[in-house]
């Protein structure tokens, strides 16, 4: 290493830091291993499996959106095709008694996703930006509609199913019980997350970022942006295929919903809400959205509306997603000025919550009158019972909503001032840029 490199290049990670880094992965592995000991019920194991699948799917999506700047409205195509192929594969493997155990099968899904991404990606990735987004939507509609025509392969509306327990047994596991599926998903999740993290730290990974920032300039440093986008697309399709395969194994069925617009929309929601700017963002998003969709549907009839509103709120007020919001505070934490923010946050929280409560109250009341007009007006939403016919409730909703809004607007400008204050101090200490 030359002298200049020593003085100018960023220092290579010291042994302690490397240790911390690998320790993090090890810790993640241990947590995954121990999780079923703490939450062992069938329901929570299923939830964990769904989260794992969603994490792989969202991270694969972020290879496109966050890393390479490609907004896809059709990512479920590769997820779904991976799932279908795996169901067929399980049926073929078990019918012919081929010596391939279930844990290897997700790889078939991955290779399917890769193959279709390689096939469809060359055309789609010729253009970036809005055109790419529209093309991804068109290709997705093409595949989803074709799936309904090719009934023998895709099984029409009902889909096709398989029995995952009939494959070669490994260490006496037949993968019937959910706990075994949980461990299968957990292992694949860990492998896929590590692989996708590693991908960001390769020459290709860095050129993906460059293409995201400025595809024009990339051409003048020797790279063909189309090839970079295409390779990113292929990797993304591969990991989406693995996620789809795990989903198919988990449910033992694949149907046209796997490929559909709703699935593509959900992964976009999860990734964006989690935050596309950081590697960990989609993981956070996957966990959050899975819990949200499981939890909200118990709490309210119109949970999808709340889901959409949360998404719009994130786009409007927190374009960095949950992770972006948290990471914003890192310089303040380092500079020790985070405490200056807390009082203003505490003050702003109250009217904001009031406003949200008012909004929910009004919404649920309106829903009562439009969806179930004839029913009893004593309804229950978010665990709270109230009388939707009572004028007091209407007045309360209006006061909370409007009053909350007026006060919240004021308090958030205070938050803004406190923020400027705290960052300028951090900047003086040379921490914030």
């Amino acid at each position: 290493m030359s002298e200049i490199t020593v003085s100018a290049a960023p220092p290579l990670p010291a042994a302690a830091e490397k240790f911390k880094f690998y320790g993090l992965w090890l810790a993640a592995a241990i947590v995954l291993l121990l999780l079923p000991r703490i939450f062992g019920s069938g329901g929570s194991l299923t939830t964990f499996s769904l989260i794992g699948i969603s994490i792989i799917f969202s991270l694969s999506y972020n290879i496109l959106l966050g890393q390479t700047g490609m907004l896809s409205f059709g990512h479920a195509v590769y997820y779904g095709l991976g799932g279908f192929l795996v169901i067929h594969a399980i049926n073929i493997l078990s019918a012919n008694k081929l010596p391939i155990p279930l844990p290897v099968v997700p790889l078939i899904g991955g290779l399917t996703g890769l193959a279709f991404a390689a096939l469809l990606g060359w055309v789609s990735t010729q253009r970036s930006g809005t055109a790419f987004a529209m093309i991804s939507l068109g290709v997705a509609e093409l595949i989803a509609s074709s799936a309904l025509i090719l009934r023998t392969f895709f099984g029409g509306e009902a889909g096709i199913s398989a029995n995952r327990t009939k494959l070669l047994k490994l260490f006496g596991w037949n993968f019937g019980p959910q706990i075994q599926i949980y461990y299968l998903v957990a292992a694949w999740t860990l492998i896929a997350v590590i692989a996708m993290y590693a991908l960001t730290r390769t020459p290709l990974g860095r050129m993906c970022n460059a293409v995201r920032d400025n595809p024009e300039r990339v051409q003048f440093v020797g790279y063909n942006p189309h090839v970079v986008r295409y390779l990113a697309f292929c990797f993304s399709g591969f990991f989406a295929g693995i996620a789809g395969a795990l989903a198919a194994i988990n449910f033992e069925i694949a149907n046209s919903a796997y490929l559909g617009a709703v699935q593509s929309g959900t992964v976009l929601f999860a990734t964006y809400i989690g935050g596309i700017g950081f590697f960990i963002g989609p993981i956070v998003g996957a966990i959050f959205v899975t819990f949200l969709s499981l939890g909200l549907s118990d709490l309210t009839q119109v949970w999808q509306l709340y889901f959409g509103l949360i998404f719009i709120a994130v786009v409007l007020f927190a374009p960095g997603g949950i992770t972006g919001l948290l990471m914003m505070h890192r310089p303040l934490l380092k500079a020790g000025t985070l405490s200056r923010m807390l009082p203003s946050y505490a003050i702003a929280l109250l009217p904001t919550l009031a406003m949200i409560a008012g909004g929910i109250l009004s919404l649920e009341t309106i829903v009562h009158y439009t969806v179930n007009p004839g029913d009893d007006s004593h309804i229950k939403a978010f665990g709270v019972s109230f009388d939707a016919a009572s004028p007091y409730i209407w007045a309360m909703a209006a006061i909370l909503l409007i009053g909350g809004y007026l006060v919240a607007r004021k308090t958030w400008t205070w938050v803004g001032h406190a923020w400027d204050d705290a960052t300028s101090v951090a900047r003086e200490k040379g921490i914030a840029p």
Partner: protein
Amino acid sequence: MTAAIELRRLEKSFGEVSIIRNISLSVAQGERHALIGPNGAGKSTTFNLISGYMAPTSGNVLLRGEVISGLPPYQINRRGLSRSFQVTNVFANMSVWENLRCAVLWSTGQRYAFWKNIDNLPDVRDRTAQILTDINLTARRDVPAGLLTYAEQRALEIGITVAGGADVILLDEPTAGMSRAETERAVALIRRLTEGRTLLIVEHDMSVVFGLADRISVLVYGQIIASGTPEEIRGNPKVREAYLGEEAA
């Protein structure tokens, strides 16, 4: 000896409007050649034609005797021709270090490698560190390019352009918008970084042009009206009338 860059009867028109009208020009290897002319003369278009950003309507561009016109920009770049932009054109969300490293990758043979750890490439690391030191941005290494000052961004722009080790460098108004002192530093930087390479530069600042260039060509309304050493250009009545006269007035 074959010329580093040769333009043969180059023409470019957009619809009815012709921007470049039959330019022929030859830049010898190792020469520092300046392209001057009034606004709208077609200097940037000429750069766009040479670097592959646009295809000529007719005529050819030759790099070391080989025709490159019609090739996409990345292939021209791989053949050893690199250009900068008049409007700063960097990777705004990436750090200075990452910007330069991206510019180094292809020339160190990394291609689209997805199996190598980028931090474990000593060659890439050394080259990037060298360029970073050359453009004096060591202290700003980890700052996102979008947050640099204007002069720093211009330096980074030049750094990205030369980082790949191209031996033909095209700089489009590298000192535009800079103060006197910044311009002087930039000229010294350009002189140092293009040592032993061929340089074609578009510049409005006459002190930069006459201080830096071995030869000068004057472009007016899409045509080269004169080409020669700085002394010849200074003494050329046609140039004085068409261009330098305006400057003096």
